[in-house]
């Protein structure tokens, strides 16, 4: 940043060249200055997920961490409006007091990074748009954003949406902002739809490691009207590899067998309807042909927390891939992963989290090809420290890249906000 701007700016700046605007107006002023001086900036919240995406091409950083606090929470209206960088944990705590929650079940990316919980901020989470296990039932993060305010790359404060669920007034920019990794606006306010928590949950673990049976079960689960709200497959890990955490260290429960692969699904509701649903599902899935066990509410809640903490990849030094495909290709993909990788399958057969050791980076290319062939995609969520970027972090075809460039330009003509975070030149 030029000396002139430093003198003119009243906004606090630390020795690492990071700016800390205190409010929306200051964010706007700062970005206006940066726009004037053609000075790109990295936009961060509390930096909990800074390992996701490319390194930005910028000389300074704008931290929105001071924009924190709940602005308006109306439990009876099922919405909460927060300043952009309100910690997710704070939001979840407040909602929990009213027996409500963010239904998309936020993932705790802190475990991968430092081995401890750090959910980061709402803005950071929205910018990734990575929903947890309940995704296939309730939608993604983007489906729960009712509106936002933010500052575009010219420094203009803009808004979209509102606090009501039904709203078709103007373009739905909330969708565009979700998963944009801070490249379109510096968020200042977010309004989210919240939903009541279910009274209770049980989880049924089915012990099998046959790809065709697993995906047959996933298919029957997603075809059931019993509305299951989570379904994962956790395989035994390859014996000859050296991982920091083993699946059997993470998923230790009284009613869950160790040292064997399992598919687990969650049933939520009041106690009577859970019993009723499990009874129906036992029949639909032909569970009498399998070995299975049921985790009660205490075990069930902790189980899904561990799934959504990505705890089996805790503190990993390796590459972590997020691969999403239509579930009909799942069995095929599973066969090609078997015993070669540490992984697990979420979203009732759609989402594969895969760890690829740094010495085996070339495998990423093969997996990406498989994902694309199956009509899905692969994102390298975390790279090992010596990753050579032979495969880009995000994949995009030439037409979508062309449109993305245009969209970026319409928000941020001088590429001030997080340039290069997703794609080179965007």
């Amino acid at each position, binding site marked *: 940043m030029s000396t002139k701007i430093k003198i003119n700016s009243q906004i606090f700046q630390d020795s690492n060249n990071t700016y800390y605007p205190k409010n929306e107006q200051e964010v706007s002023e700062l970005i206006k200055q940066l726009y004037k001086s053609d000075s790109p900036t990295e936009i961060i919240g509390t930096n909990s997920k800074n390992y996701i995406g490319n390194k930005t091409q910028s000389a300074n950083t704008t931290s929105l961490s001071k924009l924190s606090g709940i602005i308006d929470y109306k439990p009876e209206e*099922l919405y909460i409006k927060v300043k952009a960088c309100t910690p997710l944990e704070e939001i979840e705590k407040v909602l929990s007091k009213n027996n409500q929650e963010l239904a998309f079940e936020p993932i705790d990316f802190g475990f991968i990074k430092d081995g401890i919980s750090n959910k980061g901020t709402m803005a950071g989470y929205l910018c990734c748009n990575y929903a947890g296990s309940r995704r296939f039932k309730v939608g993604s993060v983007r489906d729960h954003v009712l509106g936002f305010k933010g500052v575009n790359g010219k420094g203009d404060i803009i808004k979209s949406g509102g606090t009501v669920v039904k709203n078709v007034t103007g*373009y739905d920019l909330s*969708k565009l902002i979700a998963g944009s990794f801070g490249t379109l606006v510096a968020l200042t306010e977010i309004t989210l739809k919240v939903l009541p928590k279910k009274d209770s949950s049980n989880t049924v673990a089915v012990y099998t490691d046959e790809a065709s049976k697993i995906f047959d079960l996933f298919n029957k689960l997603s075809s059931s009207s019993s509305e299951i709200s989570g379904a994962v497959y956790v395989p035994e890990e390859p014996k000859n590899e050296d991982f920091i955490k083993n699946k059997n260290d993470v998923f230790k429960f009284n009613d869950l067998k160790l040292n064997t692969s399992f598919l687990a699904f969650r049933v939520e509701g009041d106690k009577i309807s859970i019993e009723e649903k499990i009874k129906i599902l036992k029949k639909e899935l032909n569970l009498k042909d399998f070995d299975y066990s049921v985790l009660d509410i205490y075990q069930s809640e902790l189980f899904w927390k561990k799934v959504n903490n990505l705890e089996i990849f805790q503190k990993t030094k390796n590459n972590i891939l997020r691969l999403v495909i239509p579930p009909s290709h799942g069995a095929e993909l599973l066969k090609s992963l078997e015993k070669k990788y540490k992984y697990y399958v979420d979203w009732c057969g759609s989402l594969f989290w895969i760890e690829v050791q740094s010495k085996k980076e070339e495998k990423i290319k093969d997996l990406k090809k498989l994902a694309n062939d199956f009509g899905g*995609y692969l994102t390298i969520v975390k790279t090992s420290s010596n990753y050579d970027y032979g495969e880009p972090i995000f994949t995009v075809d030439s037409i979508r890249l062309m449109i993305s460039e245009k969209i970026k330009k*319409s928000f941020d003509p001088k590429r001030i906000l997080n340039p290069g975070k*997703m794609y080179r030149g965007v």
Partner: protein
Amino acid sequence: MSEIALPKIEKSIIDKKKEIVKKLSKLTNSDNVLSEADELRPYETDALSVYTQTPLAVVLPENTEQVSEILKYCHEENIKVVPRGAGTGLSGGALPLQDAILLGLGKFNQILEIDYHNKCVVTQPGVTNLGITHAVQHKGFYYAPDPSSQLACSIGGNVAENSGGVHSLKYGTTTNNILGVEMVMMDGTICRLGGKSFDQEGYDLMGLICGSEGLLGVVTEVTVKILKKPEVVKAALIGFSTIQEGGDSVSEIISSGIVPAGMEIMDKALIEATDNFSKAGYPRDAELLLIVELDGTESEVNELIKKVELICKKNNCSSLKLSKNENERLSFWAGRKAAFPACGAMAPDYYCMDGSIPRGKLTEALLEIKRLSNKYNLPVANCFHAGDGNLHPLIMFDGNDKDQLRKTEEFGSEILKTCVKLGGVITGEHGVGIEKRELMCEMFNDDDIEQQLNIKKSLDEKNLLNPGKVYPILRKCAEEGRVHVHKNKDKFPDLPRF
């Protein structure tokens, strides 16, 4: 009826009509191009039938390549294009322009693939909303968004408008229920956004296209999610003797942690009108009628119904009836679905408004509408998607009386402004179109609108695709018309309207 500002007519384009028709015939085939006055008449308007314009020509391409070639040609020759699905839109989004081609997607009427394994259907945009459910219901599946015109409205139009329906609180609107689209941009570029897998990487362009009212691209294929039908669905019909008690019950039901599949409210005027019209057996002495629909497993639904019953009794409901079987449940809905035609039978004309408000402001909104009704001396009937806060007041008037017409427009405008004042928005599900264009500045400031226009410009730099819609032309808050129905001659009088 009010005059409405439309983009400047390019005379040079009209002069070239013959040449354009010839070229279009070449790009598809001559049977698919309509250019004679009598052929064009059916396309002069959509369901906002108060506004009519004759298009330069209508072209009905048969495949994506033809759409691409047509758009590319129009882009090169600076010819405006108005896309059109089934023409059931209520905000004038498909209103033709005299110097524009009307691009109809009516020939895109095939379901391409039913994929039960991935729980999705790949369909052409001209297939009706209900057509999708019909194609999968024998296996117990359905497509969730259910705009009331679902019998006739096309899925492509649903994407353009981000259509909702009665069940959107629990199941979301179109944007939450589609996985992918194929779209042609104004310069002819064909692009695929999303597919059969969840949450495409990168910018959510599909999310941007959904609800963009045909301004950013022409959708030529849609992949929608299908859901398994719930095991049990039951409804309750509950009467209240005051608006306040009914409104409080709605808030309490939501606060108690119940997410009903549907929750609808009708006021006294509408209870009478619909009961006269469809003999639904509604409690005619009630000031307010609440229909609550719950779905899930048998015990779950019974438990929820008990809770709803308790809340409503606590709030002094004057009557309460539970559906005993599927036929009775459908009969509860019959009157509600006939709300619009029932109003048509009560007055020569009615205006349908479409605003959203926070649920808790229902009483305030209804009382304000009542006050305005007295102020303007015009009767009004209210139906309300209480579950998601979407309000549809129906103002009754006589369009032959110019003074009444003017007053109706003022009344309508005041209602929408009230919605914004109460923390809501000017359109919940009917879209902005040309109808609420000038009211956009009630919600957005110049910076907000400029950002949206910049997006439009970046994808259609010549502003050729559906120009004059959604964004104010004059950049001022003029007050324009709403859905105006004369002598019950709605464009589609038989369609149920919510």
